[in-house]
């Protein structure tokens, strides 16, 4: 587990941590981190789609763009991803 604090940056490429699992739920998805045992709620299906598309996108912003979701909602995605990065659910794509 990384101890350095990494901040979310929408221009960077991200992916789910290897030890994170997503479970689809009616409200979106549950995310569980087997490493730090944290559980979190992804509270919209659009957010789940964005998170799942991160690994194939050159940047988070590109994933937002590719999601087809109105740009006015992007700040709420940024906020959610910031918290997912803080909980180590997301790591930079180039993390070994």
């Amino acid at each position: 587990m990384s101890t350095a604090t990494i901040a979310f940056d929408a221009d960077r490429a991200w992916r789910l941590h290897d030890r994170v699992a997503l479970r689809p739920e009616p409200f979106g998805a549950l995310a569980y981190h087997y490493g730090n045992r944290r559980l979190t709620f992804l509270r919209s299906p659009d957010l789940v789609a964005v998170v799942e598309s991160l690994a194939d996108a050159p940047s988070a912003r590109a994933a937002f763009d590719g999601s087809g979701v109105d740009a006015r909602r992007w700040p709420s995605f940024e906020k959610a991803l910031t918290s997912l990065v803080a909980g180590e659910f997301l790591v930079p794509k180039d993390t070994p």
Partner: protein
Amino acid sequence: MTQLTDQLTLGLNAPICLTWEWTYACDLQCVHCLSSSGRRDPHELTTPEMKDVVDQLAAMQVFYVNIGGGEPMLRPDFFEIIEYCVSRGVGVKFSTNGGRINAENARRLAALDYVDVQISLDGIDEATNDAIRGEGTHARVRRAMDHLRDADFGSFKLSVVMTRENVGQVDAYEALAAEYGAELRLTRFRPSGRGIDTWHDLHPTSQQQVDLYHWLLARPHVLTGDSFFHLSALGEPLPGLNLCGAGRVVCLIDPVGDVYACPFVLHDEFKAGTIRGEGGFAAVWQSSDLFTSLREPSSPGACGSCGSYDVCGGGCMAAKFFTGLPLDAPDPECVFGHGEDALAALAANGGAVRPSMTADHSKPLGVGRRRIPVTAL
């Protein structure tokens, strides 16, 4: 309630917090035991059935299970099933009385990934703890904690059920947990199981509950399993979902495979089905009549005119049921005293009819079972 808790009350594809009790056997006879454990049930799940449940949970993406009992370590296949859970990606958090945590078992546990241990202690000193858990158990738990530390297990959880006798010791528990590099977990004493008989004399007083609320509010790192959500009516909500999750985010599988709405209602009225039936656990979780009805909007009943209903949701279903209150009555420990009033009204009307356990596995009195000395207050 928030939008999220609204959605959670409608039910999920799988539980978030699943308690799975592995055996009714226990070498202790704690006076507050939620499952009235003691004797093993002859119909407990076999090793292949246990593994089949693990497979079902893995398929439903249940990320982890809370394992309890009885004393789960008394199952001869304990490590075999634990290792199977881990191999299938089902994390394990198990509660133990510590009696079987010797040096070797502590090393075995430390070597496993995804395994958390929660060890029960109900008094900082021998007199307080042993009155609840039985003679010699304080010393035994401390030895188990030493073994976990010596085996470099890492952070385990020290778990205390809050009673009238020990709630004043919270600072000492915090210090003890810190000394071992452990996390502290405090949970609510429910009037379930053998607690049906002991709760009335041992549950914290209303002043103690107010003090506990402020203590917890200042210590968000102390774990509570969301069990004190009835106290959130006092003001700022405690961390957690603050809702009764029975059949919505929580359920229990008992040692014979019966599925109940939560770990505190081992009673026929809250039995949703059995994992031995067609469709297994998923069928019970997704479509049993009981769980379907628990996911429907419920009436606030007697709490409808209270401004705090949105925060506490009327409190704990099990606490009401086992004290003889209707399910739409206030929680017996309602912070505004409405529960005490409701209990007093029941008593004035000829006494509350308290349900008894439908499956009591207690050992007969006299077999290592000791009545707690109770003083009427």
